[in-house]
Structures are given as structure tokens and as C-alpha cells.
């Protein structure tokens, strides 16, 4: 239902043009939970923001994004407002910083619902909060963000995201900074929402990804290097970055990936991962691999694996 082709986000920097998001192709199906895994600096948050038209003014976006057949990237701000928050919902990162501290929870929900012309009655709000597992919803509605715990704020952020019943919900790092018991509850809650709508999940937390996803896409240095169904991905990751990433997890062998993530202005020639790759060959240093289909529903950007 959401189809992205050749999406690029570029900026001008003192060192020349930089492309934090570089030629992304992907499809999200109806009612599918699609997860983008990547480490800091890979561009995943920017990608999510571009799907909502929320990029800074000096960002140059190109490519095509089709939602239910309609192209949305080239929309004017007025039309974006009909889609943003309405058909595409957002659960933003870090609710402690993104919730307005001077408004009660009721006001914040009201604002969201009213803006998209959805029913904003108290009952509706209570049922929304119940859905996200907030106990005592009536009491919570009259409270301010600082009176809620981290987990509750996150649940509220999710409630805000689904308030307008969007067809697709973008959740940007929804479990960041939460304790493990709280994280578990949030993950369980998110999986209940799974059946109702598509979810685009952005995270660097492999545990959360493995528990919620139908499909995984791995992002490195601005590009997608692997797309696969979740189960087969975690059983057998194909791209060297994916397998090395998994191997560095404490539940696995915890072997670090040598080297550092390339800076935006210092991306290697050829394959962007080659300086850190155990399988790099001469071709990897000079030619840039494309995303290729190697199995049913599996795509990899790698010469050594194709």
C-alpha cells in the first residue's frame, strides 16, 4: 500500500552535497509490519520524516512515493496536511521531549483529533488510551506529561499516533530508553495493533525488531543493503553487514564489527561496507552493488552474495 522508489534526500554542506538517504526502494504491504533496522547515522529517521513531508526546508527530496496509488512526495503543504497525521500516523521518538509540557494529555489528544476532523469526545479518548494499555485513562487525561512515567508517555505517544486511525503508522524508535519490563509491555501492545494497519517500525534494537516484524530492511550509510522476511532474516542473514551486526549482539557471539560507520562526507567508493567487510574482494572496492533479488522476497546489495 506504500511504495517507495528511488527516494533520495540531499543537503548542501560546507563540504559539498551529502545524501543521508540514497536511492531507497521498498514496498510496505497492507497490514504488514515493516521494520527498518540501522545504526545511528544511517539515515533511517530522515527516511521516516520524508514520508511525512517533515524535512527541514533546505532538504532536497527526489524520488517517488505512492500511497494507495497516489503520489505523495510532490504534494503541496496544504495537501500534505490531509495525509499527515490522518492517513499516515507518527509515533515520534523520545516522547519526553516531544510532548508539550504545558498542555494536559487531554488537550494534546484533542488537538490531534480536532485537526483531522475526527470525533474528539472524551469517550473516544478513553477508549484510545485503554487500547494502548493506559490504566485510569480518565485520570491520566487531566495530567501533564511530567506526571507520567516514561512508559506511559510512550503509550500516550502511540495513542496520539493511532488516534486518527491511520492506514499506516510510523513508529520511530518507540522503545528507546525504556527499561526491559516496560519495553516488553510496549512491544506486546504494538503487536496487538499489528492486525489493524500497516506499521513502519524504525529501530536499532534488534530484539524489538525480531519480535514485531513481518519484514526487515537493513539500512547502512543511507542505503538499504538487505530486505527479507523477518523469520528468515534472523535465522540466516545474508548481507555481511547484517550477519556481522547480528553476531555483535550479546545474545550471539558479541563479535564487534571492525572500524567505524562512515561519515556522510567520507563514504567509501564501491560498496560502502567494504572497508569493514570480511568478504570484500577487488570488485567491492571499485563498483557499487545494486539491490538484487536472490530468493523469493529476499534482496541483497552485495557482490559476494549475489
Amino acid at each position, binding site marked *: 500500500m506504500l511504495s517507495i522508489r528511488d527516494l533520495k534526500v540531499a543537503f548542501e554542506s560546507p563540504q559539498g552535497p551529502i545524501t543521508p538517504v540514497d536511492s531507497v526502494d521498498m514496498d510496505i504491504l497492507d497490514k504488514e509490519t515493516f521494520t527498518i533496522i540501522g545504526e545511528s547515522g544511517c539515515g533511517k529517521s530522515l527516511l521516516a520524516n520524508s514520508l511525512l513531508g517533515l524535512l527541514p526546508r533546505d532538504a532536497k527530496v527526489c524520488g517517488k512515493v505512492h500511497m494507495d496509488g497516489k503520489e505523495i512526495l510532490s504534494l503541496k503543504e496544504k495537501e500534505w496536511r490531509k495525509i499527515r497525521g490522518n492517513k499516515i500516523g507518527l509515533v515520534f521518538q523520545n516522547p519526553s521531549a516531544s510532548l508539550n509540557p504545558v498542555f494536559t494529555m487531554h488537550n494534546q489528544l484533542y488537538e490531534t483529533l480536532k485537526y483531522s476532523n475526527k470525533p474528539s469526545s472524551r469517550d473516544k479518548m478513553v477508549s484510545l488510551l485503554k487500547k494502548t494499555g493506559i490504566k485510569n485513562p480518565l485520570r491520566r487525561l487531566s495530567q501533564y506529561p511530567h506526571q507520567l512515567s516514561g512508559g506511559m508517555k510512550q503509550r500516550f505517544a502511540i495513542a496520539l499516533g493511532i488516534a486518527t486511525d491511520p492506514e499506516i503508522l510510523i513508529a520511530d524508535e518507540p522503545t528507546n530508553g525504556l*527499561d526491559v519490563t516496560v519495553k516488553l509491555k510496549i512491544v506486546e501492545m504494538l503487536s496487538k495493533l499489528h492486525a489493524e494497519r500497516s506499521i513502519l517500525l524504525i529501530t536499532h534494537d534488534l530484539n524489538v525488531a525480531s519480535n514485531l516484524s513481518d519484514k526487515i530492511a537493513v539500512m547502512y550509510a543511507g542505503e538499504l543493503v538487505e530486505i527479507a522476511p523477518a523469520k528468515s532474516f534472523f535465522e540466516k542473514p545474508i548481507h555481511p553487514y547484517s550477519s556481522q551486526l547480528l553476531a555483535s549482539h550479546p545474545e550471539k557471539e558479541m563479535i564487534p564489527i571492525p572500524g567505524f560507520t562512515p561519515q556522510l562526507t567520507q563514504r567509501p567508493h564501491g560498496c560502502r561496507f567494504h572497508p569493514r567487510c570480511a568478504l570484500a574482494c577487488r570488485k567491492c572496492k571499485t563498483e557499487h552493488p545494486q539491490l538484487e533479488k536472490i530468493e523469493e522476497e529476499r534482496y541483497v546489495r552485495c557482490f559476494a552474495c549475489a
Partner: protein
Amino acid sequence: MLEVKTLDKSYSSSTIPFRKKSVKVLENISFRINKHETLCIVGESGCGKTTLAKCLVSLEKPDNGKIILEGRDVTFPDRKTLSFLHTKVQMIFQNADTSLNPRHLIYDSLAEPLRLQGQNEDKVRKRVFQLLTHVGLSEEHLHRHPHQLSGGQNQRIAIARAIALHPDLLIADEITAALDVSVQAQILQLLKTLKKEMDMTLLFISHDLTLVKRIADRVAVMQDGKLVEINDTNEIFHNPQSPYTKELISSMARLSLNSHTPK
């Protein structure tokens, strides 16, 4: 090598004299750290683990109790004891962004502990280069500011600075919580190497049980300011005694890479 006896600490939540509500941050904490081991303290946010760590380096003062380091009482240290404490114990914080002065060059951040000890500039220079290579960074990083380096690189600098004075006990307070998983693995491998080479004891604070399972010799579980359980790693994970520990372990298992929440 370190012994903590019945440590208590409360904070009062108001400065108005008649309305003080005190919050017990640490309650009756007692445990030992053995030489050369890796002891991990686990607990969720607000359980007091950071406050405990700060008491051990005298950044906070407990209300009651004793802290005994290698036979010396360091609970309420005078200047001489403080000096002794500083050379024996050092701490690394969670966020490298705030533990390095943003206005200082990396070189100056690394030089600080040495300069504070009164070493002359030549010696300082040599040692800074040594420390840098020890943590896997290169000279070019010296002339930068923290905001020009990544989180992982900054954390390495913080580690280098902490080991500058050859401490016997290193306290790491959630040092990888803000880092990506592959960077975390790098930092932990570095820590493991350093611990061995420099013959240190490690007190590692974390809320990540999977991590703790991997690196700890013994584990201490904290909840709401109390030490709930402390045992060898194997025992804690296969034979947890307290209900809280059991809850933590079961959450960890349900979020494991191998589990899939039923849809």
C-alpha cells in the same frame, strides 16, 4: 577488595523546612567486590544503582554505613584519603557527550587527570599518546572537539581518561546504553582487554540482562534502593531466588531474538 556495609541514603524532595518528604534512594546496601572480578549491578531506572556508584567514588555522601577500600575506610574521606581514593577507583559515565567538556580539545580532556596530578607537560604528552593508542584511536582525534567524534569514539576517550591513573577498580555506569549494538560490542571488547592488561576489577552497571549474562562473574540485583539478590552469574540466571529477579529474567527471555510475540 572493596566492601560496602549497610549503606543508606535519602534525598529530601523539598527545601521548605516543614514539608520535607524524604525518599530513600539506598537502603541497607551491603556487598563485597572481589579483586579482579567483574561484578554487574542490574536494575531498572530509579533503583539507585547510579547513586551507589557515586557514593563509591565519593561524588555523593551516604547517610550511614561504611565503604572500605583495601582495608581503608573511605566513606567520608578527608583530603588525604580522597587522594588515595582517586588513584584507586575511577568511574565512566553513560553519556560520553556530557562527560567530556564540549569546549575542550580531546587532548586536554585526556591530559586533565595527569595535569591534576602535577605531571609536567612532556610526561603528559607521552602518556596521552599512549592512552590514545591503547583505546584504538589515532592522533588526528586529539585535535578535535567531542561533537566532531561519534558516541563510540567519545566513550573510548572517556575510558582512556579513566585508566590514565591506573585505577584498581573501574566503575562503568551504563556506558553502552546509548550506543549501537555493534559499537557496544567494540567497547566491551576494549574493556575486556584493558581489564586483563591492567589487572583491574570491574564494577559494571547495566539494565541489559543479556549483556550482563555475557560478561559478569557475579551479579547483584537492585530494586527500589535495596539489594535484592547477589550471586554468581550462573546461579542468578538458572536459579533465581527473588521474584523480582525472576520477573527480569522472564522479560529478557520474552524479548529475546529467538522469540516471536504471537500475532
